[in-house]
């Protein structure tokens, strides 16, 4: 029970911190950064469920993010639908697409899965780009309305912060719950040895499709929130580069760790700030980071941090578990 209690305490502290931090940042640019960190955390958590838990790579996750954003953008600007309704439609549509494509695509393994998802991402990107009459094409879609709640309109950083972070916190909590349940264990079992998992009665095929669907669904919610926050979207934000960025977030933060996803999202969102000094060198730093992290810190930063903390606490050796 202690482990469970510790989880609850950690989550409570995290939630509390997330909720009070804006009071110190009122009117600051960093509030805006935190809004984007929230969206990216949502995406990283979604991808982590697939990549970190089930061990299935996706190099096309930006497609689901983009689908969510475009469904929201198009339905609100062209048909005047309510943003909340549209958010639900976006999630359902993206989830359905993932469910349908999931069966054939998740039959593939390793490199083939990577390439297939990459192909899917590129196809979706081309669709966003070329269906000019619907999406506005490469020059984007503007005038997307902000989210609202009765009279409260989410048109500034403070409101958006709470909107996005409350949803993100809920998704994080649900994901943590999921990861510690029989489904989470089954996913990790598939990751470790798919054959053994199947022999133990885990229906790997269905489960992979299910988690792919959930992941796409969360990504679409993130996309919808993004669209209503930015009020403008264009295909360039949903290309292959962003898919790789998402994978990087998950890897840097830590595969199979929900807080790691937050850490990865936060670092990649603020990284350009630091790399700005380096100007054009940032792409090199980025590539190096991917290689070095994968080679020498496969558990991600959250694991590194955990080790440092444990070392400092003087209890090196036994690792406390708590992958979540």
């Amino acid at each position, binding site marked *: 029970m202690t482990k469970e209690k510790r989880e609850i305490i950690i989550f409570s502290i995290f939630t509390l911190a997330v909720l009070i931090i804006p009071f110190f940042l009122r009117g600051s640019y960093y509030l805006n950064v935190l809004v984007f960190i929230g969206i990216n955390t949502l995406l990283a958590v979604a991808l982590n469920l697939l990549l970190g838990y089930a061990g299935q790579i996706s190099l096309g996750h930006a497609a689901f993010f983009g689908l969510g954003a475009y469904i929201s953008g198009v339905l609100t600007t062209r048909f005047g639908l309510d943003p909340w309704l549209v958010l639900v439609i976006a999630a359902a549509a993206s989830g359905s697409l993932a469910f349908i494509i999931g069966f054939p695509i998740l039959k*593939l393994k390793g490199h083939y899965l990577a390439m297939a998802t*990459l192909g899917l991402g590129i196809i979706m990107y081309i669709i966003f780009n070329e269906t000019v009459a619907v999406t506005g094409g490469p020059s984007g879609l503007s005038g997307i309305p902000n989210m609202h709640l009765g009279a409260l309109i989410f048109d500034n950083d403070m409101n958006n912060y709470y909107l996005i972070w409350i949803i993100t916190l809920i998704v994080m909590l649900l994901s943590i719950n999921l990861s510690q349940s029989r489904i989470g264990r089954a996913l990790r079992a598939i990751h470790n040895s798919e054959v053994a998992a199947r022999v133990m009665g885990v229906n790997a095929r269905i489960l992979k499709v299910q988690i792919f669907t959930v992941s796409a669904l969360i990504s679409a919610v993130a996309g919808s929130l993004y669209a209503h926050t930015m009020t403008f979207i264009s295909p360039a934000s949903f290309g292959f580069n962003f898919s790789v960025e998402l994978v990087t977030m998950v890897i840097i933060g830590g595969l199979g760790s929900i807080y790691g996803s937050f850490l990865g999202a936060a670092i990649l969102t603020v990284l350009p700030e630091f790399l700005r000094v380096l100007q054009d060198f940032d*792409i090199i730093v980025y*590539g190096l980071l991917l290689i070095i992290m*994968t080679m020498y810190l496969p558990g991600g930063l959250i694991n590194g941090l955990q080790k440092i903390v444990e070392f400092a606490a003087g209890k090196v050796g036994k690792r406390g578990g708590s992958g979540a």
Partner: protein
Amino acid sequence: MDNSRQLFQYILSGLSNGAIYALIGFGFAIIHNATGIINFAQGEFVMLGGMFTLFFVAFLNLPLIPAIILAILVSTIVGIVFERLAVRPLKNAKPLSIVIITIGASILIRGIAMLVWGKDTHAVPAFSGSNPLYIVGATIMPQHLWIFAIAVLIIIGNKIFFSYSIIGKAMRACAYNAQAASLVGIDVKTMVLFSFIISSAIGSLAGIIIAPLTMTSYDVGIMLGLKGFCAVIIGGMSSGLGTVLGGLLLGLLESLGAGYLSASYKDAIAFIILLLILFIRPEGLFKKKETERV
């Protein structure tokens, strides 16, 4: 009347592009067959080939032939360094890690190329002039003939190498069963290194001969690499005729698709083919189906 001339032009252009895709595809197949790795950085060797040639010709004023040889040499060294630093230390890494590392390497190589040569696109002189040749009313560039010729040479070379040379045979043994190969005394690590050497050399050669047509810039490798991958998937990961057929088929479908359906969805056509093949016949169109289920 004019329609048939147009069709013929689509076919000819499609085949020309297809030969390019096939050439790039070889590189994927060779590394994959020796190591099981799909090298996401393969496209960058195509870029390096073109860029180094340009560098040696335009900046060092070397004649074309020495420039080409040097360019292949330097690209191959990059391939060796890549294998040594990023692939060899991995040992039993999961496919996931290898995917990430090769993606990281491709970003890195691209980034360095951007810093060294800038972001501009550069024209590279054609090997033998830029006046089109007419074949039954359709046209083709002399450079295309070079591409066809070199593709044929590479297939023959591959065939000879993998069927008759000791190293080639050893590499095939590793591809078939690395554990068994090491038991009979084949140095698997060296074979992996060889596969990187050969594929970076072929990749850069592909980059060199297509650069006069496509021009070259630091980021030209991404799309070309992906198309080469599509070709090799259609061809069933073969380092021979399968990939050539795969490339030609891809080029044809793209060209006809662009001509008769929609040019905007040209790239989408390539990737839809990729997905369909992966879904329906992951072993490729030209390979006998394996009976294995797991």
